[in-house]
């Protein structure tokens, strides 16, 4: 981020998550993604007059999971409201949402950011309905697909506790991780499962908060960070030039990297919020025990440090995704050197997994464990394991099969290795003489000579040890 000229940035987020249910929020239409347009519609989600909404209990359960994981106070009785506005994607002329009397309030999420522990407060968690998908054509029309109309959303509103665009990005990533752990939504941002609006203001330390500007539709981590960075700079420039920041809604244009003022006609009171008369108050008491929270990301990470003795940063990486953490745990179940296995997974394998996703990754944890146990028992070297791994990936064969059928095992008998060492010493009198005069660097070519005799199947560390012993001991081991 460029210079802030001594200004402080204050950011709050409003995040919308599509809940991964079978049916929509208020009707039994399927909400499966990617079906032909307007094939998953009914009188309720098309907004036909007289159609009555009936709440999907699964959304309530998923909402309660998020509320509890965010340590919020759950309101056993909450209420739905109508938010009135006219737009083609909203056929009823209002969105059913929650306003006052939210599902849950006063939560928080804690995470590490730039070396310090941060806590962002969550003001409220609301259940609401998605609008239809609209496409605006060049010739001035809007095309509408109501398959998306009425898909359940959770709205998560934070307090303005974020202090930089980079922190906002980190927070969103942590929230996404949590929601994926809870299996409330896959949070695929390209599919619009997770979207953020932000509000941002700047002020000088010690002075009251500045005027906040809302930025809409930030649909990727990059868009969020870029838009907020641009907007902070813009507001600082306005203030530095002696101007005033206008309270407004702006839209981020990814192609220019700028935010532009949106022409909105609605102010808060124009939405004419009022209690939804078609829905009685929502009582969730009966649902409070209908779910269990899984081990949460930070709990899992702490356990990996405690139980497996992993470094914190390694544990953090391995618990990014629940499936990866499960993979790791299954893999190390019968291994002895867990730190080595963790490093192997993080440094060698993770990039390959990320390239395709864990479900499509062809090597199962037990197969990976077999490979690593060959290293642990000294039958192959770690270096050779890398080649074997590549071949497992390409050929789909097991590690044992590759190693055995191609004679890749380390020359395991000490006698054999000692014989090769003795031979190498005998065959290279000049190198040996140089070594004994103090030029210890020649150990390299000597190791090379032994390795050549073993056709690369010895552990170079062990060869080095044996060579040193032979050379220093004068007359071999």
């Amino acid at each position, binding site marked *: 981020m460029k210079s802030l000229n001594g200004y402080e940035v204050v950011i709050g987020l409003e995040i919308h998550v599509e809940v991964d249910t079978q049916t929509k929020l208020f009707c039994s*239409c399927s909400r499966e993604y990617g079906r032909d347009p307007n094939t998953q519609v009914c009188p309720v989600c098309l907004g036909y007059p007289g159609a009555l909404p*009936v709440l*999907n209990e699964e959304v309530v359960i998923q909402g309660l999971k998020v509320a509890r994981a965010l340590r919020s106070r759950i309101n056993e009785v909450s209420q739905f409201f109508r938010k009135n506005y006219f737009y083609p994607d909203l056929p009823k002329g209002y969105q059913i949402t929650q306003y006052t009397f939210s599902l849950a309030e006063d939560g928080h999420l804690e995470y590490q950011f730039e070396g310090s522990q941060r806590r962002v407060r969550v003001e409220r968690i609301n259940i609401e309905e998605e609008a239809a998908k609209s496409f605006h054509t060049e010739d001035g029309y809007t095309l509408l*697909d109501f398959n998306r109309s009425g898909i359940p959303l959770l709205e998560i509103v934070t307090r303005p506790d974020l202090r930089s665009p980079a922190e906002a990005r980190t927070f969103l990533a942590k929230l996404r991780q949590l929601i994926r752990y809870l299996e409330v939504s896959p949070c695929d941002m390209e599919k619009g499962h997770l979207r953020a609006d932000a509000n941002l203001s700047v002020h000088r330390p010690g002075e009251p908060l500045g005027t906040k500007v809302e930025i809409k539709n930030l649909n990727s981590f990059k868009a969020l960070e870029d838009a907020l960075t641009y907007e902070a700079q813009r507001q600082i420039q306005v203030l530095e030039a002696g101007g005033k920041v206008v309270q407004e809604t702006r839209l981020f244009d990814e192609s220019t990297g700028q935010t532009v003022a949106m022409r909105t006609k609605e102010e808060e009171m124009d939405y004419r919020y009022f209690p939804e008369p078609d829905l009685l*108050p929502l009582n969730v008491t009966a649902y409070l025990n209908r779910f269990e929270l899984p081990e949460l990301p930070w709990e899992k990470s702490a356990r990996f440090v405690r139980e497996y003795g992993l470094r914190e940063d390694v544990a953090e990486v391995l618990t990014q995704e629940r499936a990866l953490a499960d993979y790791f745990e299954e893999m190390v179940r019968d291994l002895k050197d867990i730190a080595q296995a963790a490093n192997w997974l993080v440094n060698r394998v993770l990039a390959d997994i990320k390239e395709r996703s864990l479900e499509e990754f062809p090597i199962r944890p037990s197969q990976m464990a077999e490979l690593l146990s060959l290293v642990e028992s000294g039958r192959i070297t770690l270096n050779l394991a890398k080649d074997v791994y590549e071949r497992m990936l390409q050929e789909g064969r097991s590690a044992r099969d590759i190693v055995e059928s191609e004679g890749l095992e380390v020359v395991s008998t000490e006698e054999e290795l000692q014989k090769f060492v003795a031979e190498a010493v005998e065959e290279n009198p000049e190198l040996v003489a140089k070594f004994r005069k103090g030029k210890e660097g020649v150990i390299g070519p000597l190791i090379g000579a032994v390795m050549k005799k073993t056709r690369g199947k010895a552990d170079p560390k062990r060869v080095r040890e044996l060579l040193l012993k032979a050379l220093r001991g004068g007359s071999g081991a």
Partner: protein
Amino acid sequence: MNRKLDIDHIARLAKLDLSPEERVRLRRDLERILSYVETLKEVPVEGVDPLPYPHEGHFQRMRPDTPRPGLNRNDVIRLAPDELFFLFRTPSPLRGLKKKP
């Protein structure tokens, strides 16, 4: 009713293009409706809790998350005033914004 009735603002929110005559007529209608609602203010409600729902102690029913087939697409699209490739087609709300400053 102290707040001035801003018929232009309301028309913009509703995305309606009103003629001067319509404006006059609608203003008259809306003012009549609003002054009728104003009479509610004469009711003494001191100490009375708001009652948004008449069924005290009753809560909404919920349904299980089980999909059911909806409407046939051809039937739905037949009701649309205009369509393109099975998508409802409406004048773009952005069009109005561009036209009027």
